[in-house]
């Protein structure tokens, strides 16, 4: 069950801009969601009012601005749904539900927090950083991308006080290699109190192993194909590490403690 009754209705698009060659940020005026939302939660957006694509598209909250009553999502155009969303104009009446799911748990010791992001996994970290920084935490964000075109958010995160270290295999980042190699090197040099990771499955799996070995508690934000996003269909699962049954990513997650998740599931 979600903690608050989610809003289900229309929100007006107040901005929809390209921030990198394939990455866009959509900002919506929706005080209901902006007031209730927590970092790590998501919204489920209808890309079309027609039957195709049928299902809503889930996106993490990338900005939560209570004062303005807006939220944003940072999305990569990967298929038909995101293509249609990129065509939303100013004033567009966007059909969405949110906030959904359980966000990041921020009540643990977190004085020196570590973010590990892979690609679009950077999306949920800005609002999380805002909360942690307001509490005087220091944050290091390791951010892996394939190429410079995939970079987003770096200057925004830096402006609010996050130390961002980028990694890429094509040499465009600070670190030449995968973000998980950067993570291994970073964990050898520095102690952190709490880790948060979001990104592709293989990256999360490796991040879990490295963080557990370093005794760093880690929360992961998971993705899966979703239908309702509400717990109606039981379609978006990932196995629990107890080896017996499944988490439902939309309601138990999308953020879970890494140790509770069995990453061996992807076929």
């Amino acid at each position, binding site marked *: 069950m979600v903690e608050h009754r989610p809003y289900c209705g229309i929100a007006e698009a107040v901005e929809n801009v390209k921030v990198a060659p394939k990455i866009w940020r959509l900002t919506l005026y929706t005080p209901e969601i902006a007031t209730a939302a927590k970092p790590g939660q998501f919204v489920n957006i209808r890309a079309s009012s027609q039957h195709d694509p049928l*299902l809503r598209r889930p996106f993490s909250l990338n900005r939560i601005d209570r004062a303005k009553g807006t939220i944003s999502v940072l999305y990569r155009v990967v298929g038909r749904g995101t293509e249609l969303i990129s065509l939303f104009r100013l004033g567009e009446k966007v059909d969405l539900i949110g906030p959904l799911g359980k966000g990041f748990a921020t009540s643990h010791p977190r004085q020196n927090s570590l973010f590990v992001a892979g690609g679009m996994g950077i999306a949920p970290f800005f609002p999380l950083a805002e909360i942690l920084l307001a509490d005087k935490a220091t944050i290091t964000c390791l951010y892996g991308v394939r190429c410079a075109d995939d970079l987003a958010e770096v200057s925004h995160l830096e402006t609010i006080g996050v130390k961002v270290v980028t990694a890429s295999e094509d040499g465009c980042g600070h670190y030449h290699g995968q973000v998980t190699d950067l993570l291994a090197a970073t964990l050898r040099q520095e102690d952190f109190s709490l880790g948060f990771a979001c990104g592709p499955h293989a990256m999360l799996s490796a991040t879990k192993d490295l963080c557990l070995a370093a005794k760093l508690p880690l929360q992961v934000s998971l993705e899966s194909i979703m*239908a309702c996003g*509400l717990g109606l269909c*039981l*379609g*978006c699962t990932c*196995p629990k590490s107890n080896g017996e049954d499944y988490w439902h990513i939309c309601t138990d997650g999308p953020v879970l403690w890494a140790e509770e998740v069995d990453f061996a*599931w992807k076929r």
Partner: protein
Amino acid sequence: MEKINPLATSLAGLSLSSPLVTASGTCGYARELSQFFDLGMLGAIVVKGITLAPRTGNPGTRLIETPAGLINSIGLENPGVEKFISGEMPFLRQQHAPVIVNISGNTEEEYAALAARLDKVAGVSALEVNISCPNVKTGGMAFGACTIAASRVTTLVRQHSQLPLIVKLSPNVTDIAAIARAVEDAGADAISLINTLLGMAIDIETRRPILRGTFGGLSGPAIKPVALRMVYQVFRAVKIPVIGMGGISTWQDAAEFILAGATAVGIGTASMVNPLAIPTIHQGLQAYATRQGVRNIAELRGMAHQ
């Protein structure tokens, strides 16, 4: 003056405030939908399929979106009948809508045991016997694909339960009317149809079927014409009421099913896309009944056959 409700419906001895019911497996045990509207406006709550023992559901990918459709392979994930009764019935009992429990077995004995167990449970208004689940290895659809097996399961459940009995048919058969007649003869009080159509998708990079179980169940607008045709055929074939479903997402769709002969209609995938689908359809249907000049929606039932 008493306000007449043009959508009031009676079905297999139950009084429903409207013909709109949830389709099993698309609204869990209704807690989630209750965040969006008062469940009292539902004709009935049809819960996710229950089995005797708990089931964790299928591994791997469970959902594939298709043009105007959805293939699912949930695999009847559910807490099992005992936990359902202790954990979910207290909440369901408080809602002002009849509760229809969808049951599934691997064997005839399991159907019988489920029927017997649920028979005296307070708040359970009827059973929907799912002989049409495409997502389990044994049982399920196998019972719905042959007249003899379908009739045997129906007879057995009838023997073990006093509750109104709705048998849910699979569309994955050559002669739906024959199956419908078989379950009617075996004592079913109503028939619901359709369950999902067997479908599949292949990952062209790995060259393998996407679902571990190869096939899954197709639902959503894509299946509506097939569902409507089957409801139309079954209405002609039997005297017991029909709950029609399959791809209904608007009041116009619901109206078509009623005109084809459905006494009630189930809304599934549409609620997953829009949790307010049922209230929206409700409103539209009410206005339609008024515009058609009928006192009750039942007057439109089966009109497409005339």
